[in-house]
């Protein structure tokens, strides 16, 4: 795939006045259009998933509006601004994470939320999805690349502190995603392949040991992946119902609002983490492929912006944020379709919920900032 492909899909981007106007306000026209397409697609599916409940739908609409504002705001700031503030944001985030462990609000058995008077309740771990790659990119922006061993160790420490805090909440899924975002920067920075290989091998060796550090329910989720029928009404329920929903959709789907698995409440979490099953059931294989195609355009565009970025910091940050986005998509669809264990990862820009969408959009705003603020 070359950059020409994407240019062709949006003929006005180069020459049209609308594209030029957007660029002037630091928005990438193609990127923006695809994001809007995904959000609209997601809203339609959500409208069905919530049984046409206008209140819930309206909530999501407002959140998406806020998310786009976050995108717009983030795009206005110069990459150099992010570079300057990266260490402070990171340190602030770590402080908040420690606060969460100390005085956080417990919801459903894990302590993820911070309730500071005067501010809306929020999850500091969400902030770290951006702060960690930003900090690692900051660390490498004036260091020799490919990274030397001691720099890699330092970067791993930067990643490990917040990741450990998040896993302690416990929120293994987010912890791994945050760590993954940091590691993505390392890989993009040119980490030697053989080091990656060594790390992979040592992880494989350590796997049996890691097994014992998992919580019971986490082990159960991994075991369930291999044999959902062992406990069809308990641990296996989610995965049996989601694969049934997707599979029964067939190629063309049962039609919007016609999904029986979701509307008859067999499918759990159908508005949040498992919403791709609603897509699969109601819009079929075609519906999922369409969404995947949109996601793939976002990823390709994000990586292209990274490649064309002028600074090391911009390159690493834009690349890492894009890869993280890909990981979200892959992990979510992988888990709902029964390829990966169930971890709490929402489907980006589609699942019901505001925090994740706002973080993601802010991330895309940063990528656009990298694209549009160019030193001449």
């Amino acid at each position, binding site marked *: 795939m070359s950059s020409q492909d994407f240019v062709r899909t949006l003929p006005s981007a180069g020459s049209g006045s609308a594209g030029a106007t957007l660029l002037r306000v630091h928005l990438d026209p193609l990127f923006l259009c695809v994001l809007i397409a995904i959000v609209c697609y997601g809203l339609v599916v959500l409208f069905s998933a919530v049984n046409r409940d206008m209140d819930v739908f309206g909530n999501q609409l407002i959140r998406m509006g806020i998310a786009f504002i976050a995108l717009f705001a983030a795009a206005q700031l110069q990459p150099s601004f992010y570079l300057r503030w990266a260490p402070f944001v990171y340190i602030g985030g770590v402080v908040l994470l420690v606060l969460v462990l100390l005085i956080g609000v417990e919801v459903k058995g894990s302590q993820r939320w911070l309730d500071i008077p005067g501010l809306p309740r929020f999850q500091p771990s969400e902030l770290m999805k951006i702060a960690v790659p930003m900090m690692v990119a900051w660390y490498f922006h*004036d*260091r*020799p*690349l*490919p990274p*030397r061993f001691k720099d890699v160790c330092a970067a791993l420490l930067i990643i490990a502190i917040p990741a450990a805090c998040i896993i302690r909440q416990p929120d293994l899924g987010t912890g791994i995603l945050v760590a993954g975002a940091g590691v993505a920067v390392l*890989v*993009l920075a*040119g980490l030697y392949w053989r080091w990656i290989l060594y790390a992979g091998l040592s992880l494989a060796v350590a796997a049996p040991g890691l097994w014992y550090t998992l919580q019971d329910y986490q082990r159960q989720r991994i075991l369930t992946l291999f044999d959902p029928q062992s406990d069809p*009404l308990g641990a296996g329920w989610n995965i049996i*119902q989601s*694969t*049934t*929903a*997707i*599979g*029964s*959709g*067939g*190629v063309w789907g049962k039609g919007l609002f016609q999904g*029986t*698995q979701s509307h*008859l*409440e*067999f499918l759990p979490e159908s508005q949040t983490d498992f919403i791709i099953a609603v897509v*699969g*059931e109601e819009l*079929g*294989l075609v519906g*999922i*492929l369409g969404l*995947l195609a949109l996601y*793939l355009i976002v*990823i*390709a565009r994000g*990586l292209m912006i*990274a*490649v064309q970025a002028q600074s*090391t910091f911009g*390159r690493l940050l834009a*690349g890492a944020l894009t*890869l993280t986005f*890909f990981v979200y*998509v*892959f992990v979510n*669809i*992988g888990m709902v*379709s*029964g*390829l990966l264990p169930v971890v709490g990862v929402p489907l980006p820009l589609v699942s019901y919920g505001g925090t994740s969408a706002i973080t993601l959009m802010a991330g895309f705003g940063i990528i656009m900032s990298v694209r549009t603020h160019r030193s001449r």
Partner: protein
Amino acid sequence: MARSISFNDPLRERRSFGARVALLFTIAVLLIAVLVTRLVQLQVWEFETYQTRSDENRIQVQPLAPPRGLIYDRNGVLLADNTTIYSLALVRERVDDMEALLARLNQLVGLDAEELEGYERRLKRRRRPFEPVTMKEILSEAEIARLAVERHRLPGVEIVTELVRRYPANSASLFAHAVGSVRRVTEEDLQRLDPVSYSATRYLGRRGVERFYENSLHGQVGYQQVETDAHGRIRQVLEINPPVSGKDITLHLDHRLQIAASAALGGRRGAVVALDPRSGGVLAMVSNPGYDPNLFISGMTGETYSALLNSRDKPLFNRAINGQYAPGSTFKPIVGLAGIATGETNWSEHIEDRGWFKLPNQERIYRDWSWTARNSGGQGVVNLNRAIYRSSNVYFYDLASRIGIARLAPFAAQFGLGQNLAEDISLASSGLLPDPIWKQGVKGQVWYPGDTVNLGIGQGDLLVTPLQLATISATLANRGRVVRPRMLLESNRALVELDPLPAPEPVQGLSPEDWELMVDSMEDVVHRGNKGYGQNGTAWAYIGRGIDYRMAGKSGTAQVVEIRQGEEYDEEELGEFNRKHAWFIAFAPADNPVIALAVLVENGGGGSSVAGPVAREVLDAYLLPQLAAK
């Protein structure tokens, strides 16, 4: 300075970054290809599996119980109906706090230990998720109202409606033994019954007509396809295939006659079976005491049940078809006819009855019922006619010993003794007609001539049920034509059970005159009166006066305990349950009988004095309205 390398070579760094991104993008595309493959697997290759699974999730096929067929008497009076009951069921999956819920339910409707145990037991059976499990059956209106008010605070509680058998209150216990009853289908039943046809049925015929005609009364199970959500709530009915209700059946039973028979027995233990001798139709079948069959549907406390089960009066025992007693003197007409048929006697031959009988070369003395220690008694000169209306024991001792068991037993068997002749009363006992082979086989003893002597007056090992004796009465009424007793008169549709048994052979070896003379003798039992001491029919004094129709009858008393040689039967000395059973068989009008019956009063005493009036009352109740109508 190592650090300057990167600054000095931004182009190289940029190129290596580009290569990495290209590689990572390729990996991402490959991973998405893995996802797509998985989706194709689910949605294309295994589509049908998942489509089926999705339909199985939401579509439930629920069996619908057919309404049980109704049962009517011959006049269209409803004997067995259906009614709606409401029961309390719990959906375990929807109950958060079981203990709190049970405590609340206990306050609202009261739950006893038995109900809780039953619930736990049913909960363990195989069931679908979210299937309601019965907790308490038969809620009262007040209980339903209380539950309805609290409903939103009782998640998982459901009120289930169901159609069940109901025996009308005013006739329930009166007809319990004749119509039978239903009982709950048990686990063992389900192994035996057709699991499909009985998938929604919770009660099946337990006794009587309800049991015999189970297949016809049951009907055909229906189905509905419903769409349910994950919580088991029905969202919509997709398809309905309604059940076919059971066939309605009409019985020969006559509601009014049944009431009259029960009233005639009063509170005494006993039975009345009345047949239409022309068809064998059972006009009345009373076994006293009865019981309320509704108890077996609505449930009863263990106390009530054990009281029913252990009562000395045995209310659950159907005396009419399962009570087996010696027929006593009611057997004498058969012995007399056997004497005629075998040529051992004729209507004019007579003997001298001195009140006792001795077999040649034997010491044992067989005494007449009228024998007393002070006065040896005896009926004097008796022929067959007088032997019947005076019920001479000595005459029949003598006659039976002359006929011999080898000829007497086969002759008596023609009347249905020792077998169940009934067309549709499968649980009826067959009684016992003893003969040498039976005695050798069961008792391991040879047949003594004395056994034949005892048989001559219907004692010894001979046993009959009231139904059998009513059949004998009908055979006498029919002048030898044997009919099968039957409950079913007709039904609104053809019955599966209706595969008629062959008609029994008529009694052989007798001329029409012989039958008329026997009927005349039995008429004398009732009507021969005002002839002076020792000359009247045995029953005349009790029932023979003021009769508007001709009635033929024969009394009998069956010994319960053996009276030893030389001892007298003294009713006062014996306990109630050791007193003789009183029998009376009768049919009327004698020349064209439309009803034949047998009356048993357990431990009642004299046949003529105790059972006779019962028979008269029943016949009056049946015939007088008919006579008045003419």
